[in-house]
């Protein structure tokens, strides 16, 4: 696969923030699980829109509005292709992955989860794919069940198989934002759907980093966030199978999602607009197209390969450094480019703060996955997470900065 190898230097040069200096140093940005940096192609698309054809879409019959409408819908087609959906009717723009999941809980969940039903999630879940189900289950007197993980951080498939029978919904992440665990969602979807269970996959941490194909995966819903995959903030995607979306009541009401309104009744627009209420985040959706094009140009296979290489290198260096606890699967084929760790001498917050002095950005805390931390008896972790622009030299800077942490905070 050498032919595919990513030109990291070139990617780095495309991302303007990497030519800025912080405290006299370039930024070693290792917080990609929180959000990604943006290539100039995406930033320029925003300026081009606002300076050249800013307008409201779908209803304007003048030139700039028609152009904006076409480009907005072009992003939808690009997303469709990127995740392997069958039709643009299945691609709904939301604010973020969190809203995508809430949309499903509030509409599909409201009308399909009943008293006594079982909703299945995993202990790996981010709060955004956990609390909506917790609250829904409470309201409906349904039961929320957690699929456990094994000692190596991978999902416990035996536990899943035991619980799958008769479940109403399986809502599971494709990649953990803490342990990096890649979850075998395709196999799980096959089993779950055989049992008549609806399947939602949280792709917030997978879609940015590996090839995703919702048809092949066999899920009913899939959620992702633009900002984690080179795109602007304020855009999420909900993929939903057409027949399910059609049967669902709308979510927010007003604006473009409407077909007709009379004083006593209203009817809804066709898919996918039925789920897009009010003025859309036009500029950011249009700019998101350029993020997807960028990733497709690099190829998701190369992105994944690059991240595996960096993760491998980082795991080695961190093990070498000593005194750290690393969490998550050791098998790189089962792991995304995310490394959560703790250090005996220092609290995660202090690690992150001292690293900041070296212009190395990592995150500390629960990473919105408190139940996972509780199940591992951890009061928080430090987390480094990689993307296509990260280099081995940045990993070296991370390790050197950890040396400073030990120097400053070691008792």
């Amino acid at each position, binding site marked *: 696969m050498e032919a595919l190898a990513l030109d990291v230097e070139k990617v780095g040069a495309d991302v303007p923030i990497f030519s800025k200096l912080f405290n006299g140093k370039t930024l070693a940005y290792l917080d990609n699980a929180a959000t990604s940096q943006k290539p100039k192609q995406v930033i320029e698309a925003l300026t081009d829109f606002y300076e050249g054809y800013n307008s409201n879409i779908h209803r304007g019959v003048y030139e700039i509005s028609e152009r904006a*409408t*076409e480009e907005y*819908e072009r992003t939808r087609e690009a997303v469709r292709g990127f995740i392997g959906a069958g039709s643009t009717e299945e691609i709904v723009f939301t604010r973020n992955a969190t809203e995508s999941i809430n949309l499903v809980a509030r509409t599909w969940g409201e009308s399909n989860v009943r008293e006594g039903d079982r909703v299945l999630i995993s202990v790996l879940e981010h709060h955004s794919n956990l609390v909506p189900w917790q609250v829904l289950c409470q309201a409906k007197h349904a039961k929320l069940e957690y699929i456990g993980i094994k000692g190596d951080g991978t999902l416990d498939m035996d536990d899943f198989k035991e619980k799958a029978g008769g479940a109403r919904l399986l809502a599971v992440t494709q990649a953990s934002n803490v342990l990096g665990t890649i979850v075998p969602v395709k196999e799980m979807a096959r089993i779950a759907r055989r049992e008549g269970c609806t399947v939602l996959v949280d792709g917030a941490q997978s879609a940015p980093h590996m090839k995703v194909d919702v048809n092949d995966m066999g899920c009913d819903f899939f959620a992702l966030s633009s900002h984690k995959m080179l795109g602007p903030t304020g855009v999420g995607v909900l993929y939903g199978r057409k027949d399910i979306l059609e049967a669902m009541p709308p979510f927010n009401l007003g604006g473009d999602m409407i077909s007709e309104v009379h004083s006593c009744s209203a009817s809804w627009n066709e898919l996918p607009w039925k789920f897009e209420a009010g003025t859309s985040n036009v500029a950011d959706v249009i700019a998101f197209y350029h993020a997807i094009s960028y990733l497709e140009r690099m190829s998701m296979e190369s992105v994944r390969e690059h991240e595996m290489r960096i993760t491998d290198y980082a795991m080695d260096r961190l093990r070498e450094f000593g005194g750290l606890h690393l969490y998550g699967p050791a098998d790189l084929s089962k792991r995304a480019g995310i490394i959560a760790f703790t250090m005996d001498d220092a609290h995660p917050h202090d690690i992150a703060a001292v690293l900041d002095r070296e212009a190395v950005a990592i995150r500390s805390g629960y990473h919105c996955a408190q139940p996972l931390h509780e199940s591992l008896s951890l009061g928080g972790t430090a987390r480094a997470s990689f993307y296509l622009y990260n280099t081995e030299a940045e990993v070296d800077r991370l390790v050197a900065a950890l040396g400073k942490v030990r120097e400053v905070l070691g008792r």
Partner: protein
Amino acid sequence: MSDEVYKEIILDHYKNPHNFRQLAEPSFKADDSNPLCGDHIELSVKVADGRVSEVGFIGKGCAISQAAASILTDLIQGKTLDELKGMEKEQLLEAMGNPDLGPVRIKCALLSLKTLKLGLYPYMSARGPTP
């Protein structure tokens, strides 16, 4: 800019629509509207020997929707039901001189074709397969 929208042929049909009437005893009829802008079309079709023998429309709305309906009524005269069924939007747009319509107004142009199919399908399935 939509310089290419108001072609002569569209303005002609808009100002002097063809077949602008309701048929007394149509074989099938249908009406539909474009909820976004209030365009409305009522189409009535008489079939004889498996072919369109007479067609009329009434409606109101923008020049594009009304001209398109008028042009459509000319276009389908004498056509077989299967020909109607197979009719693609490109045929209508071509007959309109391929105006440069944006994403919003294309719906105005295609409203009459949509209305036609809306009346045609139930009529065809009620009649059963053509012999």
